[in-house]
């Protein structure tokens, strides 16, 4: 991402000026204030200009894909990254190619780590939470389907016995899958108990 720095008498002036230099409209530009400046006393003395850093905004999916590809290349792995925006605004990154085992890692640990750094980098850059999901060869998708099956069969047990049921400890992302899978089930409710790695999801009958 090419960035420029620009100074102006006020924030608005700095933004206008930077957009002009980049040759794009203000909507297409992202910016970050480096120095807020000071307004001049009596309009003449002691004033300091506002300095901003500005860049051309790139769609989130392209940004995520480029970062993923850059990491794959630097890891010397033979794989190609693709990305798109999902239904809820989340960024879905999919890796295809060889060396998938290495990209996935033990229990998907490498995928999760790549996901963490991409979402952290994008969230910081855009100053808002960007949800990113990274998958390779459909690994996480299959894992999610398996968790959904466990959730649904446990929910059936709860419905027939009327007793609550604890699922094994799961990561936040996995628990989220269970919550979503059972969200529309009229007979059960879900919540989590425990801390950290021991946090488990509980399915209870709805009273």
């Amino acid at each position: 991402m090419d960035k420029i720095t620009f100074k102006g008498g006020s924030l608005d002036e700095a933004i206008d000026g930077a957009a002009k230099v980049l040759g794009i409209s203000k909507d297409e530009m992202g910016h970050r204030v480096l120095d807020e400046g000071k307004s001049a006393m009596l309009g003449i003395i002691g004033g300091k200009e506002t300095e901003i850093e500005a860049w051309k905004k790139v769609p989130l999916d392209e940004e995520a894909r480029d970062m993923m590809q850059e990491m794959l290349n630097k890891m010397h792995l033979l794989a190609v990254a693709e990305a798109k925006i999902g239904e809820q605004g989340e960024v879905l990154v999919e890796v295809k190619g060889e060396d998938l085992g290495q990209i996935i890692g033990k229990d998907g640990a490498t995928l999760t780590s790549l996901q963490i750094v991409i979402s952290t980098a994008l969230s910081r850059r855009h100053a808002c939470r960007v949800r990113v999901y990274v998958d390779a060869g459909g690994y996480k998708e299959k894992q999610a389907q398996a968790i959904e099956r466990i959730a649904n069969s446990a929910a059936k047990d709860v419905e027939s016995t009327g007793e609550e049921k604890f699922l094994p400890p799961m990561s936040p992302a996995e628990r989220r899958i269970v919550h979503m899978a059972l969200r529309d089930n009229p007979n059960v409710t879900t919540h989590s108990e425990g801390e950290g790695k021991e946090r488990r999801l509980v399915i209870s009958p709805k009273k």
Partner: protein
Amino acid sequence: MKDLIEYIVKSLVDKPDEVNINEVLGETVTVVEISVADEDVGKVIGKEGRIANALRTIAKAAGAKDKIRVSVEILTKEDNHG
């Protein structure tokens, strides 16, 4: 390895110009030392070490192909001055 870690760390911090990565090649293990601006240390470590652990896992995966063991260390102020 240095390239990879440098790229990721620079994308996480506010002051990429102050990122320094030092790669120490040993016989059995490569040590990657990361130093960043004081105010960026927390960003590289993350809540409960989440980011630091992600960096270690990625470094491990990158080293696996060449059968290199990688150790990632984040230097703090005390390390630099002490």
